[in-house]
């Protein structure tokens, strides 16, 4: 029984960090869909761009000058060139190395203005021209945009994953088993994944608080419920919705920045999350923010459980289809999703 309990606890933990990424991406998707009525297939690309903000900052901080060391040789037998980061030469080796080590958390600050700008340009430059077009057109144009963005990233950063480590302080893992009275080394969990979950909870909380407790948020919520009436009251709802697009892009970007140490970023990572995140949105209920978060965590945990060996022994391949299977069951039982409202995408 203990063996089962610790396996279940571990998979719940696994599901929480997977679910964190799903929830953050789905939250942004729902924000955009709820405010602008646009089905944004480029949202996964925003997650990927966020991760590459972390890669870029790490590279910028690691920019180096070369000095020739005659005592060493390179692979061709020529005197070796030793690279020293500028930042280490300016601030001293220890301070410089510490700043480079903390490049991922620092990239949170670096990415916010970039993601807001990317979101703003994407909305004003392309997506606003598709507001009145059918959803199929929106899906095609945003999917095309996603491919363009990922090919651009591949052109400049290459196709291989780029290691982007967490700060040394967060390397290693925490032994939950000992705390809960199990044997050591049975339930261990990486520190950075715990940080990711906590970070996701803070961001989700902040978005909800922003919408719930600020005047801006109140207007946006009113606009989501009845755009026309809010417009008739003389409020420029379009401008606010554009800002919400930027915020949704920033949420996806932050999810990407913090995900970089979990799996080395590559140009394709957005697509890997995109389809699953759409399933999350549909299961949660189109346009429902709490639904997106709830479904994100629920499907993340279910996916983890489906990967357990004894479940796979009974139902081979279940780990690959569980999310879609659950989506079908939920949509059959509740066609509007878990927390979907009447009237959304039903006209």
């Amino acid at each position, binding site marked *: 029984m203990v063996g089962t309990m610790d396996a279940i606890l571990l998979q719940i933990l696994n599901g929480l960090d997977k679910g964190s990424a799903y929830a953050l991406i789905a939250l942004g998707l729902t924000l955009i869909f709820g405010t602008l009525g646009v089905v944004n297939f480029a949202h996964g690309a925003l997650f990927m761009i966020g991760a590459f903000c972390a890669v870029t900052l790490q590279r910028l901080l690691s920019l180096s000058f070369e000095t020739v060391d005659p005592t060493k040789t390179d692979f*061709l037998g020529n005197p*070796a060139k030793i690279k020293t980061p500028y930042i280490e030469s300016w601030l001293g080796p220890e301070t410089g190395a510490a700043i480079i080590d903390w490049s991922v958390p620092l990239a949170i600050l670096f990415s916010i203005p970039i993601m807001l700008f990317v979101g703003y340009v994407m909305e004003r430059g392309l997506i606003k021209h598709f507001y009145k077009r059918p959803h199929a057109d929106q899906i095609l144009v945003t999917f095309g945009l996603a491919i363009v963005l990922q090919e651009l990233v591949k052109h400049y950063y*290459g196709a291989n994953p780029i*290691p982007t480590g967490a700060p040394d302080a967060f390397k290693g893992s925490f032994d939950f088993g000992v705390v809960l009275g199990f044997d050591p*080394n*049975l339930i261990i969990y990486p520190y950075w994944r715990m940080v990711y979950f906590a970070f996701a909870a803070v961001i989700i909380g902040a978005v909800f608080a922003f919408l719930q407790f600020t005047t801006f948020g109140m207007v946006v919520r009113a606009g989501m419920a009845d755009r026309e009436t809010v417009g008739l009251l003389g409020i420029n709802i379009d401008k606010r919705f554009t800002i919400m697009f930027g915020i949704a892009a920033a949420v996806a970007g932050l999810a990407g920045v913090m995900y970089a140490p979990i799996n080395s970023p590559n140009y394709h990572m957005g697509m890997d999350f995109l389809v699953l995140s759409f399933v999350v949105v549909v299961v949660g209920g189109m346009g429902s923010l709490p639904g997106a978060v709830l479904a994100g965590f629920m499907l993340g945990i279910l996916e983890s459980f489906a990967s357990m060996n004894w479940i796979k022994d009974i139902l081979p391949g279940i780990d690959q289809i569980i999310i879609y299977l659950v989506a079908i069951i939920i949509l059959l039982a509740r066609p509007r999703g878990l927390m979907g409202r009447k009237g959304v995408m039903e006209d």
Partner: protein
Amino acid sequence: MSNSNLTRRGVLKSGAVAGAGVALPTIFTASSAAAYTNEPTGGTVTLGFNVPQSGPYADEGADELRAYQLAVEHLNGEGDAGMMNTFSSKALKGNGILGKKVEFVTGDTQTKSDAARASAKSMIEKDGAVMITGGSSSGVAVAVQGLCQEAGVIFMAGLTHSNDTTGKDKKANGFRHFFNAYMSGAALAPVLAARYGADRKAYHLTADYTWGWTQEESIVAATEALGWETVNTVKTPLAATDFSSYITPILQTDADVLVLNHYGGNMVNSLTNAVQFGLREKQVNGRNFEIVVPLFSRLMARGAGENIKGILGSTNWHWSLTDAGSAAFVKSFGTKYGFPPSQAAHTTYCQTLLYADACERAGTFNPCGVAEALEGFEFDGLGNGKTLYRADDHQCFKDVLVVKGKDNPTSEFDLLEVVEITPVDQVTYDPNHPMFAGGALGECNAG
């Protein structure tokens, strides 16, 4: 009343036969005009380089293409001639192949079988390629090899490691210089047993496709023969990106070794996740938990960063080898591009030279003549020591490198160190070995 023998059914049958004849691709009918498919008639000969230029293995494909361009330069008498100087066969003269200047066209496999077949077909039919080479996946290699067999051109495989390429899917027109999963197991197992003990318990995570299956089968057989026990073998979806839910169950077993039968992005992520979950610090029965990556690629390993330090695996070739052939190749490649070549670059460069040399020795581009020249060909000086292109299955037999992630790399390229060069005898197997059974070379097809 007409007395004609024509019937409605007869007309339909004749029409169908005639229609099918007209619709036959030109690759099947071109032979009527020439002695063989795409027989070069002018002063040039065209080779088709079919590599992943997009998709997840694009960086590996780019390195293959660099090597091909270098090989073409050397064949045409430009540059420093690289490994042509060290190659044991002296048939190549630096004046192209059989006096014809070498030109090339490229295709993008996208690491998808259908896309790879389409690009190979286009290079054969439209560009007149007389040989197709390249690729960075066994699925692609098997698919393109089959197409080349039908089309009547030679296929010189690129990076493909599945036993099936020269096993159940082998073809008379296909040749592989790269090593295979069986050889990785045979080379790696004794080193693993010597370093980690002969009574280990292994847990396998395996990419769920042809290469992963043959890799797992090979390592399981080789390690069990030396006394290891296999605790579990778990297949992971090729599309998986986060392996945490596959890695955490290992904590609940008494396994003390994790074997990652993964390649590319799968390998980078599963290894990174395994290290994140503290497996390398784990102690089982008083011994260190170990991780093994049977097929190492330096280009891919870079993505896993410092997680590869100390991890054992195998590789076909490494730029740090000091034999004359390797040194000549590294010098040519490094001088031209500014960094050392990958194993993918090495095998594709060798394949181009081997093809050209076989044409010279056969005195023809006819695929059947070239195949005959390659079959049973023994050579040296291409970086892997004495090598045999075995006639029975068109597989090269040569020494295999067991490597380890370097603890203190001196540069971004210095990621692996060679811990043992396993002699060819130790990795040679019978052509009828069960892991390679089920296929036949068939007859050479000249188109």
